[in-house]
Structure formats: C-alpha cells, structure tokens
C-alpha cells in the first residue's frame, strides 16, 4: 500500500498529459491544483510512514526510494508547488500560453520529485537533465522577449555543462564502485570510511559531483544564470529561487557518504561557498536593480549552503535550503500584492513587520524594547552554551560550530535590518539589537538543525564533521569568525543605516572605486562585450 507513494514523480506528468486535452481554460489550474494536492497528501503520508515505522519505502526494483531525505523534501516541494500553482492561476491568466505554462510547471516539479526520490544514478541523471530542459522552456516562456530568450540561453549552457560533468561523475562512480544503486553505494562508502583510503579517483569523482552541484546551484563562477533571469514570470522565479537552485544541495546530500572519503572536496566546497557567500552578498547590497539584487541574494545563500556542506553540516544545508526557499518564494509571490497596494497608496506600501516597529514607536519605547530583547535572548543563550558544553562538548571540536555561528550572525542581521530603520546616532542600540537577533536565529537554527541531523544521519552525522574539519583550533576559528563578523557589521552599518547629515561632502576615492567595481559585478559583462566586439 505504501508503495503508492513512489508514484509521486509520475503524477505531475499525468497532470501535464491531461492538460493537453482540456479545452476549458478554467479547468487547467483546477485540475493541476487538485491533483497536486494529492501529491502533498501522499508526501505527508510518506513522511508519517518513514517516521512511524523508521524504514524507507523502496520500489521499482530499487530505482526509487522514499527515505528520510525525501520525507523532508517531498512535502516541502509539494506544498510549495501547490502555492505556486494557486498563485499562477490568476497571475498568468492573461498571458499567452496559459496551458503551456502549467504543463511545463508540472514537468519541472516531476523532475524535482524524481531527483529527490531517486535511488539510482541513472534515474538521477535523467531527472537532472529533465530539470534543465524544463527550466529552459519555463524561463523563456515569454518567447517574444529577446532578453528573456537570451538569458534563458545562459541558463541552458551552464546547466548543460552541469549535465555533462554529472554524467562523467556517474560513469566514474560506476567504474570505481561497480554499482548505480545509491543505497548500496552509500553502505559501501560508509564501510570504506572506517579505513584509510588512498585512491585519487575518489577525489576526482567527488570534485565532479561538487562542480555539477555548483553549476546548478549558481555558485561562483557559475552564478551568472541566476541574477539575470528575473524576466521570467514571477511564479517561475519562485520555482527557480526556492526549488531549482536547491538541487545542488540535494545532490551533495545524496553523495554525503562519498564525500566522507574525500575531505579535500569538502574543504574546497567550504572555500568556494565562503567566497560566493561574501562576494554575492556584497554585490547584492550595491547593485541598483532590485531583481538582480534578489538574484545575488540567492547566490549568496547558496554559497552558505555549500559552505555548510563543506563543514560537514549536511543536514543544516537541507534546513537552510528549505528556510531560504520559503523566504524567497514568499518574497517573489508577495510582489504582486505589493504592486497592487502601491497603486492605491501614494507612498510605498509598508510591510507589517515595519509597521510593528514603526519609527515613532521606536523613539519612545526603543530602549525598553531593546532591554527586553536582550533580557530574553542573552540570558538563555548563556544557559544554552553552558548546557551544550556539558551535554555535547564534541560539537565545539568541529569547525561546523563556527559556520552555525556565522550563519546565525548573517541571518540575524538580515532579520534585524528588515525590522528596524536606525540612525547612526544610535550605535549602542544597533549593536545590541544585532546581537539579540543573532541569538534568536542561533537558537532556532541550532535546535532544528540538530533535530534534522538526528533524523537524517543519526550517529553518522559526527563523521561528516570529523571529515570536514580543517584542523583548526576552536580559538583560531572563533577569532576568524569574530574578525569576519566585525568587518561585516561595519560594512552593513555603513551601507544600510541612515546617514546623519555632515558638512563633509568629499568622496572617498578608494571607496568609490571599490563600490563601482562591485556594482558593475567585477566588470564581467564589460569584458564579455569587449571580447564579442573583437570577435566581430
């Protein structure tokens, strides 16, 4: 009976075929939504089954699996898919190619389900490629727009490259380990990790999987396809930022036990992720186009995700991609409502969060509010660290603790900046509030992350941290973190906070050159244009 859950990837394809024959336009979204609800229900039942019976559902001769990873991701993708379909019902109504849109949307979701539930490298390769072509056709949905088609081509070229790299990785995996079955391979990899291995081919395979994941997850230098594709319809942007870019993280989680054998690949992932996170976040802050800014925000977040994997925090990467996906999808899907509100109000519509902490209230109640936040966060965090030190001291042995702290800092800062508008005259308050939001995020992230870790990898989770550790002392790691955070805070502070009027209007030339360099995305496209001109 439970095997019915394994039909999930085929349901969107059935929907797509049904939609071809539907003549009534109103029925197109209805059929799509009703049948997609079935997927969500099946997904939830599958999750219940996996948790309750503590066993995975395997079927189709071991090609598909509904395991712990699927139990988390399938309901997430299904519910996200439902929301996007519902949103698209009205949003896409007047667009030419309404039916085509829903058909393609179903294909891309089918590819994602297949990718999540695959237990065989060939099935994974097919899903990997199906995702690329569906994405291309969706991004170039507005076929009459030259820019949309041109940007879709970038997507396609990078994704095709990812397909090729992935294929080579699969071939080498089969040559080296003699199986396509992921469950068998994972067991083999786990057993191999008990002894020391000196096979350079494993490093090559791991690196190829990492590169494939980087290309699909828009990690630098393969990021250019993401920030420039906002011309796609809003629901497509939501799918792209909340679903498609995550596949890199999903792939690496599927290959977690392989990466256990190649710590060097994990270290590369950490460095590349860190670089992407920092550079993309800086570009996000300075580019003038809001859509591109959102694109770079996603690139930065994907950088964090890969960085977490690089530190062995595989389950945290899953949590991160889900949370980020929900956040980004909300941002995109909210844009229509904001535009509608803007039509009725002369000023920009205010966010609820902003109204809760409206400037005027802040002036009268500010200090009290900050005191409360500090009281309710700093005190518990001290208790938390104390308890953690006693119960799970080993956590502090690995560098993963640093990334969790760094992530908490970044998200906390974002949380803070989205709630408050502050002046430079309130420095103490700002620092205080930043620390408070940091702690809130740390708590959430740490507890949910731990729960996920236990669910996904059980006692093996520590092996990943062990493999990924950079052999750096905790003190050294914390010093680096502190420096990074201090620089980051200073940067954020300079970029975001309202300037106090001063008489000094002189421009700092060095700062200006740096700003221009970042705002122009490192002159990447200027170089590209020069190259093109020369060719002509």
């Amino acid at each position, binding site marked *: 009976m439970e095997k019915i859950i394994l039909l999930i990837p085929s349901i969107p394809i059935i929907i797509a075929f049904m939609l071809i024959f539907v003549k009534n336009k109103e029925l197109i979204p209805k059929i799509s939504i009703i049948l997609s609800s079935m997927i969500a229900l099946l997904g939830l039942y599958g999750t219940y089954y996996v948790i309750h019976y503590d066993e995975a559902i395997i079927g189709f*001769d071991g*090609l598909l699996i509904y395991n712990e990873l699927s139990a988390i991701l399938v309901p997430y993708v299904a519910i996200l898919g439902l929301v996007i379909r519902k949103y698209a019902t009205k949003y896409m109504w007047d667009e*030419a*190619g309404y039916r*085509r849109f829903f058909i393609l949307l179903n294909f891309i979701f089918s590819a994602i389900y297949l990718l999540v539930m695959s237990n*065989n490298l*060939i*099935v994974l*390769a*097919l899903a990997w*490629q*199906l995702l*690329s*072509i569906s994405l291309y*056709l969706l991004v*170039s949905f507005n*076929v*009459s727009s*030259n820019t949309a*088609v041109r940007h879709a*081509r970038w997507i*396609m070229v990078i994704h*095709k490259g990812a*397909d*090729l790299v992935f*294929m*080579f990785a*699969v*071939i080498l995996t*089969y*040559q080296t380990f003699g199986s*396509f079955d992921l469950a068998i391979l994972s067991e083999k990899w786990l057993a191999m990790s008990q002894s020391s291995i000196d096979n350079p081919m494993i490093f090559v395979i791991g690196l190829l999987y990492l590169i494939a994941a980087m290309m699909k997850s828009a990690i630098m230098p393969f990021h250019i396809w993401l920030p420039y594709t906002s011309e796609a319809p809003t629901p497509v942007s939501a799918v792209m930022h909340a679903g498609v870019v995550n596949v890199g993280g999903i792939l690496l989680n599927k290959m977690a036990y392989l990466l256990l054998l190649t710590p060097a690949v994990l270290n590369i992932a950490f460095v590349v992720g860190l670089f992407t996170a920092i550079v993309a976040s800086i570009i996000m802050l300075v580019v003038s186009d809001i859509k591109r800014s959102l694109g770079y925000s996603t690139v930065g977040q994907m950088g964090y995700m890969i960085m977490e994997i690089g530190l062995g925090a595989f389950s945290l990467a899953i949590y991160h991609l889900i949370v980020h996906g929900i956040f980004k999808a909300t941002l995109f899907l909210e844009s229509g409502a904001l535009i509608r509100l803007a039509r009725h109000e002369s000023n920009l519509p205010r966010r609820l969060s902003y109204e809760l902490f409206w400037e005027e209230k802040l002036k009268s109640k500010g200090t009290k509010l900050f005191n409360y936040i500090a009281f309710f966060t700093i005190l518990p965090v001290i208790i938390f660290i104390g308890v953690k030190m006693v119960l799970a001291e080993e956590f502090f042995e690995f560098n993963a603790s640093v990334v969790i702290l760094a992530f908490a800092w970044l998200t906390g800062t974002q949380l803070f900046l989205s709630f408050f508008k502050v002046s430079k005259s309130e420095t103490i308050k700002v620092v205080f509030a930043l620390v408070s939001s940091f702690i809130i995020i740390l708590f959430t992230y740490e507890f949910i992350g731990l729960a996920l870790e236990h669910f996904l990898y059980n006692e093996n989770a520590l092996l990943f941290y062990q493999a990924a550790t950079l052999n750096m002392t905790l003190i050294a790691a914390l010093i680096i973190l502190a420096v990074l955070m201090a620089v980051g805070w200073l940067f954020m502070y300079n970029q975001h906070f309202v300037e106090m009027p001063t008489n000094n209007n002189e421009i700092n030339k060095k700062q200006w050159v740096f700003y221009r360099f970042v705002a122009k995305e490192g002159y990447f496209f200027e170089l590209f244009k020069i190259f093109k001109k020369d060719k002509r």
Partner: protein
Amino acid sequence: MILDIALLLLAAGVPYYLLLEKSTKFNSRHIFLFSSTLLLCAVLLSLFIPNEHKTVLVLISLVSAIFSIYKATKTTNFYKFGYYLIFVNAPFFILFEEEGALYSLSLLIALLGIYLIARFYEKNYGSANYHHITGITLVTPCVGTYLTLYLVALALYPPFPNSIFFLSYIFGSEPNLLWYIVVTTLFFGNFFLAMRVMRKTLFGRESSSIHYVHMTLKEKITHFLVVLTLLILSIYGLKETLL
C-alpha cells in the same frame, strides 16, 4: 576492413554531402532522404555484421562531425539541418558498434519529425527555410509544440530515446580519451544546433509579413504518431537501461 569502411560511409562518417550539394540533380531534400536511407541501411547492417570500431574510423567520423557542426551553424534550412545532424552523430554509431543502432534509429525518427515540419514549411511558406518564420510557439502552438519536442529529443534531453540510449551506452562503456572527446562533442554539438533552431523559429516576435498557417488534423495525427513512436522507444530504452 572493407565492411568497416562501407559502414563508415553508410553511417555518414564522411561528409559526402559536399559532393551532393554541388550536384544540380540533388537538392537538400534529396540529400536528407538519401543520407537517412543510408543510415537506416547501416543500422540494419550492423545487426548482422560484427562491427569492430577502428580508432582511425572514429577519428575520421569525428572530424567529419565537427565540420558538420560548423556547416549546420550556417544554415537556416530544415532539410540541411536534418542531414547535417546525421553526420554529426556518426561517430557515436561508429564508436558504440551495434549498440549505437538504437540510438541512430531514435535519431532517424526524431529527424522524420523534422522532415515533416520541413515539408509543412515548404508547403505553407514556400520553402523549408525558417529564417523569417519567427515566434511560432505563440502563433501556431501545435507546430511549435511538435517542433519543440523534436528539438528537445535531438538536443539529447529525456524523456526521449536519443538521450536514454546515449546515457545507456556511455554508462556501460570503458572511457578513454577519444571516448571523452566524442561524447563531449556530440553532447554539446547536438545541443547547440537544436537550441539554435529553437531560438530562431520557435522563439521571437511574430513576423507581420508572414501569414501563419495551422496544422491540419491529418498532419497533427502524423506528428502524434511520430512522437508516440519516440515515446515507445523511450519506454523500451528505460526498460533496457534500468531493469
């Protein structure tokens, strides 16, 4: 050896279209039909002859394929596009011996679809040239859909059999340097050529100087049968590859 060379010729491993293109008796449609027929003969022949691929023959077909990719980027004619693709894919057939037969068969069926589209263009727009016939995805959705499906198949994307057989053969083989070069060339060559056609005729704005024509029911049924054949081959391919 003679049989190998014959197979190389039949499977379009040498660019004999260069001679045919110069001839006044052959137009591009004839070359398309001729090279497709020869490839079909090669597919049938490969079932009876043990084909031991020689590295030299693979190299010759690879050079021919690269040259054909270049030629294909210069044309906007569906017939030419079709027969260039036959030559582009020749190294795969030569390299994977009898296993490449099903891949070539899938290629031929997808090209049959392109041939039918070319006939449609010829009948309704005067020639098989797609240069100015832009934006058909929106204006004539049925033609757009079928053309998209054929091009997706030719660009080696699932769920079409071309991709499945391609993956199936490469996953089960022993790679060497030549193997990597052939696979990469075909993987990107087919992709870029198919995407180019997509960009030039499926996408873009509707041309005001063209009177766009929709497919008749008979044409729709014919195309449906072609796509159905492709899907049946896909199911067979998946069964062979996965189970």
